[in-house]
């Protein structure tokens, strides 16, 4: 793989054209970010349930 092919090609009209490898890695990074965000949602939900369970709100 040449250095140009590895790092994408520049075209002044079209901008940067990603190689297949760059597209594959970008997709993998996007999936990882999505999974991390989903995990964060689950963690915050679980933490909220536990905290509310530990210190229940008492009616006046």
């Amino acid at each position, binding site marked *: 793989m040449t*250095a140009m092919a*590895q*790092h*994408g090609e*520049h075209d002044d009209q079209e901008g*940067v054209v*990603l190689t297949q*490898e*760059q597209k594959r*890695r*970008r997709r*993998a*990074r996007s999936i*990882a970010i999505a999974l991390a965000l989903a995990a964060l949602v689950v*963690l915050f939900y*679980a*933490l909220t349930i*536990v905290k509310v369970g*530990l210190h229940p709100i008492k009616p006046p």
Partner: protein
Amino acid sequence: MSLLTEGAELARPAGTGARAEPSIASVGDYIALLKPRVMSLVVFTALVGMVVAPGHLNPVVGFISLLCIAIGAGAAGALNMWYDADVDAVMARTSARPIPAGHITRGEALGFGMTLAVGSVAMLGLAANWLAAGLLAFTIFFYVAIYTMWLKRATPQNIVIGGAAGAFPPMVGWAATTGGIGVESILLFLIIFFWTPPHFWALSLWRSDDYARAGIPMLPVVSGPAETRRQILIYSLVLAPLGVLPWLIGYAGVLYGATALVGGAGMIALAIRVKRESGLTGAKQLFGFSILYLFVLFAMLFADDRLAHLLGWTV
């Protein structure tokens, strides 16, 4: 030149144009930034600190706290790689890391590390308590600012003082459970603190050429192998009795005490061998044994505590 543009320059492969290239970083590169092997020891010692501390921690809160400590440690690793990219590039042991390999720019590593650092500290504060979060923040600060940015390139005592960063995790775990800092957690801190010099200096004995090439004033580079071997023995002689202390003060049981005695004797025996020989076999054995020693010591502390709870003993 800002740190971000400087980082982009450093990571850009030679021969490419002035325009920033699209990232070729894989998910694995970002995981490598977290130094997973270092992280595993941090998680383990923090878990032990968390479990053996008096009091009860909700399992969900405990899991989240441990995750925060792991991510905080990973953030410190990423920030270390951000700052040390120039040094990493010239050392054989670290030249394949994501930044010197050109997979991730320094700016990306800085952003990744800072995001994880702030996120992990905030989450630990919300999940457990703000003392634990403060200790985690201080640990990250100590590793990045005090060790990486200052001591590492300034003094042969770098890993002695900098070792404190690696010694804090059990204290963070302890604080997550109790909301305080006990004498016992300070003892766990001291064990790791005095374990670090013989562990790292054993490694540096056969990596001294690497450190010299990078301009890092490790003890073998500055004072020579003979002085390093002497210092390894001195720190091992301090470490061995320190390791037994939790048992002697009645904080740990016989299982731990026996392990600490045998392990400490092993550390001293290997340190004496390192001191006497001129080759590197003893140093490599000491390096490997030191990892085993710390792991088994903390595992026994964990086992002792669980056994005591199971059988209703008080140690």
